[in-house]
């Protein structure tokens, strides 16, 4: 894959008018993501897209020399919304380095905290941020024809969620006034409380440590969690059918909408929720305990499950440069030549990475344009460096879990082609079975739909974890912490799922201190720029060639289809979207087949 220079609907040689449109900043807690596009309004298509980040964090630089036991407290601060995912991932890496296995109750408590985090973050993002792009007000401004049709389209699941037409659903999404918007705010508060019960604090947990947790496991803590969970279940049982109605309507009312944000199915999931019966944090057994995780790790390529082996996944990670503001570290120190199984570790693997920042002027046309590096996964079979995306998190998690068919807790069952989610009776609604089926496309709509289903998945898993945790407590096994010593020399890696996708932490300890530390959250995978082979990152790839369905012309263009696509990846928390629009700067590209032909005479 390389940069597209001609749109799919354009015939070669045809002169085209491109308009530059940019959205910067889009995303993240500090607002450091920009999307720069060139749009062909005549052919209603985005021709080129570049994603850029103007912020350098430097965690891998300043972690060096720190006490490894501080790693989860420090790296939690990477994110202001899913910091606990970083803390947990760091703890997994530390557990491996220290050779410690926490007691089962500690694992259940971490799983419960993380399940609450998924419920919290996905609900907040989907209902309060994504749905703004689908609300009545927005659709009225961008696609008035679509809203007229929505007014007369009955919602098939109206009996479950209570909204008679699709337009009623869209009205409920209106920010600050819509019913769903307001209820979601309340749900995100309750789910956050659930996370606090288990992890002490949100988003930077105070009671999670390597070796276990500091949460005092009383029956009260778990029943407090359960009470809240049952309230959330009521919300979910309405939310999932409502999501289905809305997204099915888009496919039906806008034929071809499946092409919006569509890219080749190249999904990565690093697995979530450890099974205490299997996990010992020993790298040599990582394949076995990785496959026992309650969200199965895996790489899905063109709809086929390539691997579920965390060792394979680990060894295939490559951090490439190409359009990033860094010097190469090929000649720098190699920290880990072989993994504990004797497999060689590449110099471009996070264990061996040395971050050499090189600030420079942004050059979107021919040079470097982002502080994000280009993480890729090396496919040994073909030699390709795959630009995996996370599908916003849920799409990859559900897809990988469904195909692997390994998870079966009673509340959740992976069938090989779908995931069945059984939600128990809750406050006001009876029990309900949901089934997420592997979709035909990895596109904007399916990324968003999967998010709603994964909230239900996390809730159903939480029911299972609660039963297991209470089983431990009722047996009197209240130990939540195991002792450990910090070795002078060790390596560790943690694999987890941040809310929006793959998360890995790689650590090297020397002399009892951190010698090298590299966290790789989902957004570097999704927002990566073109690598040294010219392969665009997932945002760029998904937006390039995107057909435009917005009814506005260039003068009042909102870029709603582009925004929906970028947001479908859950680019961390988009706290503000500022559009630098104006009239758009017009670029004219002329094509002269033979020299002098345009001179006419």
């Amino acid at each position, binding site marked *: 894959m390389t940069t597209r220079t001609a749109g799919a609907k354009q015939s070669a040689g045809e002169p085209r008018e491109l308009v530059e449109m940019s959205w910067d900043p889009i995303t993240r807690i500090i607002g450091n993501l920009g999307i720069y596009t060139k749009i062909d309004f005549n052919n209603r298509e985005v021709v080129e897209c570049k994603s850029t980040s103007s912020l350098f964090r430097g965690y891998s630089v300043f972690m060096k020399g720190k006490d490894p036991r501080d790693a989860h407290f420090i790296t939690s601060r990477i994110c202001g919304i899913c910091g606990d995912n970083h803390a947990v991932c760091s703890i997994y890496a530390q557990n491996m380095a220290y050779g410690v296995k926490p007691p089962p109750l500690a694992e259940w408590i971490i799983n419960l905290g993380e399940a609450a985090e998924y419920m919290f973050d996905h609900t907040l993002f989907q209902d309060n941020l994504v749905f703004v792009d689908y609300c009545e007000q927005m659709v009225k401004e961008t696609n008035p024809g679509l809203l007229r049709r929505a007014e007369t389209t009955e919602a098939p699941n109206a009996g479950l969620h209570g909204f008679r037409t699709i337009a009623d659903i869209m009205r409920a999404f209106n920010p600050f006034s819509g019913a769903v918007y307001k209820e979601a705010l309340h749900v995100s508060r309750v789910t956050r409380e659930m996370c606090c019960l288990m992890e002490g604090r949100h988003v930077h947990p105070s009671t999670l*440590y390597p070796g276990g947790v500091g949460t005092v496991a009383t*029956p009260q*803590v778990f029943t407090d969690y359960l009470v809240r969970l049952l309230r959330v279940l009521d919300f979910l049982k309405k939310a999932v059918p409502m999501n289905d109605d809305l997204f099915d309507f888009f496919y039906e009312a806008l034929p071809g909408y499946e092409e919006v944000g569509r890219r080749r199915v190249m999904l990565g999931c690093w697995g979530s929720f450890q099974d205490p019966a299997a996990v010992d944090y020993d790298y040599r057994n990582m394949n076995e305990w990785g496959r026992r995780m309650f969200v199965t790790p895996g790489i899905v390529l063109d709809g086929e499950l390539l691997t579920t082996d965390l060792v394979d996944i680990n060894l295939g990670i490559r951090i490439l440069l190409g359009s990033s503001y860094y010097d190469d570290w090929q000649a720098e120190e190699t920290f880990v030549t072989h993994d504990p199984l004797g497999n060689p570790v590449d110099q471009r693997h996070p264990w061996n990475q040395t971050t050499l920042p090189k600030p420079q002027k942004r050059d979107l046309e021919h040079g470097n344009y982002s502080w994000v590096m280009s993480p890729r996964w090396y496919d040994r079979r073909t030699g390709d460096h795959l630009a995996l995306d996370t599908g916003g998190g849920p799409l990859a998690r559900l897809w990988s879990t469904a195909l692997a068919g390994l998870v079966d807790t009673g509340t959740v069952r992976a069938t090989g082609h779908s995931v069945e989610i059984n939600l128990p009776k809750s406050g006001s609604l009876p029990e309900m079975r949901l089934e997420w089926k592997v979709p035909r496309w990895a596109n904007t709509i399916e990324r968003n739909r999967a998010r709603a289903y994964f909230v239900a998945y996390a809730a159903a898993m939480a029911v299972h974890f609660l039963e297991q945790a209470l089983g431990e407590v009722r047996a009197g*096994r*209240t*130990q939540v912490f195991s*002792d*450990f010593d910090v070795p002078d020399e060790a390596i560790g890696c943690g694999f987890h799922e941040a809310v929006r996708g793959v998360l890995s932490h790689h650590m090297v300890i020397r002399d009892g201190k951190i010698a090298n530390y590299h966290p790789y959250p989902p957004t570097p995978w999704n927002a990566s720029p073109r690598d040294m082979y010219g392969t665009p990152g997932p945002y760029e790839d998904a937006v390039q060639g995107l057909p435009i369905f917005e009814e506005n012309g260039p003068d009042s263009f909102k870029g709603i289809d582009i925004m929906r696509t970028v947001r479908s990846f859950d680019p961390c928390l988009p706290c503000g979207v500022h559009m630098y629009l104006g009239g758009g700067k017009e670029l004219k590209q002329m094509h002269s087949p033979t020299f002098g032909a345009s001179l006419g005479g």
Partner: protein
Amino acid sequence: MSKKHPIRTGHPDVRPDAPSHVKGVKEGNSRGNYGKQEGHLPDGRSTARRSTGINPRKHDPIDPDMPNLSPA
């Protein structure tokens, strides 16, 4: 830092590893410390002594078959 184009910074007044562990200082996480904690039994269970030092045995369950769940 890039060797070719170093970023200009001030002189550090503290070493990056200043907050790391000083060898010889006891660590709460060290192996063997679990056994030294009052009220924590070797098999992973605990007693009311975990929660209080005042007449802890009076807070243990009245029936030995009941799980010993001390308050937080």
